[in-house]
């Protein structure tokens, strides 16, 4: 387009506010992809905030059922938390390995992350199954509804993350560290770390604050 280059510099700063930094043009794909995923994560956090809000509103609506302090086991939650924190660390190791294209450390990091995620899910599943078997299922009271959906929603995200993680490993195995695979790995790492942040909210608000009351 020959006409494009001809516009005068006078238009660069129509309001005479001084230096104008020219926008360099479209960003590289890696930035674009990660930014899009970042925006998705923020929207996901807003979704979680609704479940947090619902929990805060309904926490005292126990309908003569159990209160939080009667059913929460701090020890389990502590183990779950440690699992997730360690998995965040190993996930970080895996993403460093992916960046330097080291397959061994990548597989190791991802495998450990996966195992830790599965342990977390197993403990959570046992907690849920135990509550349901004692008659404290989500339909017992509004408080339990809110509890099960908030914690369960996080659990569903972790499950989806594990599925994604396994798919990522298979993809690296099949396709190697291609640019698009690395971009996905980066999004996965963001996702996994963000789940940790949500979990910090969950254990603080649900288990510790709710458990003490």
């Amino acid at each position, binding site marked *: 387009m*020959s006409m494009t280059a001809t516009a005068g510099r006078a238009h660069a700063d129509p*309001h005479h506010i001084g230096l104008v930094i020219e*926008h360099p043009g479209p960003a590289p794909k890696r930035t674009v992809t990660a930014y*899009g995923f970042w925006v998705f994560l923020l929207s996901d956090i*807003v979704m979680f905030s609704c479940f947090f809000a619902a929990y805060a509103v309904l926490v005292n609506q126990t309908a003569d059922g159990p209160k939080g302090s009667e059913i929460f086991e701090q020890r389990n939650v502590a183990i779950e938390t440690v699992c997730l924190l360690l998995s965040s660390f190993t996930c970080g190791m895996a993403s460093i390995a992916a960046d330097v294209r080291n397959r061994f450390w990548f597989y190791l990091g991802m495998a450990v992350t996966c195992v830790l995620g599965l342990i977390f899910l197993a403990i959570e599943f046992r907690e849920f199954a135990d509550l349901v078997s004692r008659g404290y299922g989500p339909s017992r009271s509004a408080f339990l509804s809110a509890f099960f959906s908030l914690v369960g929603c996080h659990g569903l995200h972790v499950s989806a993350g594990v599925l994604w993680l396994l798919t990522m490993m298979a993809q690296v195995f099949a396709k190697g560290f291609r640019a*698009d695979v690395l971009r996905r790995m980066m999004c996965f790492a963001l996702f996994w770390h963000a789940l940790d942040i949500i979990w910090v909210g969950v254990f603080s608000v649900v288990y510790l604050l709710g458990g003490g009351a």
Partner: protein
Amino acid sequence: MQAVPTLEALMLGKLDWSAIPFDQPIPLIAGGVVLVAILAVLIWVVVKGHLPYLWHEWITSVDHKRIGVMYILLASVMLLRGGSDAIMMRIQQAIAYQSQGYLPPEHYNQIFSAHGTIMIFFVAMPFVIGLMNLVVPLQLGVRDVAFPTLNSVGFWLTATGALLVNLSLVIGEFARTGWLAFPPLSELSYSPGVGVDYYAWSLQISGVGTLVAGINLVTTVLKLRTKGMNYLRMPMFCWTTLASNLLIVAAFPILTATLAMLLLDRYLGFHFFTNEAGGNVMMFMNLIWAWGHPEVYILVLPAFGIFSEVVSTFSGKALFGYRSMVLATMAICVISFMVWLHHFFTMGAGPDVNAIFGIASMIIAVPTGVKIYNWLFTMYGGRIRFATPMLWAVGFMVTFIIGGLTGVLVAVPPADFMLHNSMFLVAHFHNVIIGGVLFGAFAGFEYWFPKAFGFRLDERWGKLAFWFTFTGFWITFVPLYAAGMLGMTRRLQHYNVAEWRPWMIVAAIGMAVLSIGVICQIMQLVVSIRNREALRDRTGDPWDGRSLEWATSSPPPVFNFAFHPDVRGEDAYWDMKIAAQQQSLEHDVPEYQDIEMPRNSPTGFVCAFFATIMGFALIWHIWWMVILGGIGAFATFVVFAWRDHDEYVIPAAEVAAIDRVNLEERRSLVSMAGAI
């Protein structure tokens, strides 16, 4: 565990022959006609051999322009469906004085619920998202959106939602709960049928599509801009797109969460919004409106952007107060999250809460007022051309100001206590949504149609459409204000108050005039397609435009721009035109280069296919099919992730050939203008 379920229940869930409403002739005939029409179109497509073209060029296309057009097509078809609902309601209320009218209550309730749901989610949303998709990458001077394949997924998921809503016409029923499905009415104990499930699942699925579109457009505006396109040089439509999509990204998850809670209540016996076990009905109102109020700004902000473009172009002036416009847009973006309680002033939050939200609701009118003044000052002293898009813009200003003022009125809590849930309110939000969003969508449709298809729309039919729609609108909705003042509440299937009747009859007449407007719009399309050679736009700049979408041919090549334009100021294309005239024309031959474009992908379509299966199965409790759909959707993404070539190359010679044709046309235009 009680009895072992029968094989039939396992295979078909709740589905059986009673789901088809043989006893209700209206939906059955309507559904039959639509089915025949769809079959006829399908047979025509197959017999004429258009299927490969449709598949390769449209269904699997990841071109933002094609996807934008498909969004708008979906919105237009759904507008006819939602409009038919509106006509039926107006007729019912005109004749149902001291009688049952012609629609039984359970059917009437489905109609008003479907009308609202369809008009907001499947008309207004896809229309504005379609226009943003079509135009924003062009205005930013780039070749595509940030995530082209995801864009296609988003569109097809929206289409899935629309399909499910319309499926409810012939298989089962739709919600009878109003367009927001308030509990406890929408809970299982009061709505045991599949209506609310149709409603919730179609919104969940299309909501995912909308969220994807929102993420895509936010990233596009923030990360993909051509050289020199600083934030404060973006066309106003890009700014409103940014604001609107930020709201989508922040608000739609709230809808998803709220509907998920409702679905958990209905499917698994949770107690979020039930009357028993500590559930809290009010929390639903609170959460759904925390989405619902930003939603109206999601719809109207892009319309504001369209009007900014239209008013500036047809006044031949740069937009007045560009920076104040940007500020107003972003202010609306944030404040729209602080006013949601005004939808339920009457539900007992008390004076403190009501006062604060009432004040916030009045404050949000201020940036909107700033915008109105900016448009007026843009017109002031301009050389105004009253082409059809400009007519819609002027009609909008008149309509929207009145709608906005009645809005400020109901933002006063004591006044709202009198007017809540009355026909006055119905008139108010139609006043802003039709006058704002629909007029904006029509203005954008008329304005950018030549860009999308390469020929202008017939002006005579366009103006007729405007005048009929505009007059019809006022004849329909002024009576509703009056009826509301006389105490008529909304959603009445019949009534016994004699004073309301004349107003309802006038409103029905207005609806007829409005329908003529819609027919004119269809005629405009037909006539324009017939005369397309006479209306052909060869230069790519039919309106003497100011922003970059007019710098490329109409319709634009698949790569939009042979070179990323270099932007040096606001109104980028206008500056280029001026500069080109001043310096006569450079005739250097640019060095064309190969262009990489994303390959087509059936991912969106296949994914939506599985989403449809899953949605339908969830509604009817057919669990094996849900699992099948879920696995299918996951497999679709894995297949997509596994492909080896995601881009194809357009060779430089081809780029050159396409671009030269456009440059020649444009040069002749500019030299002609220079001669005058």
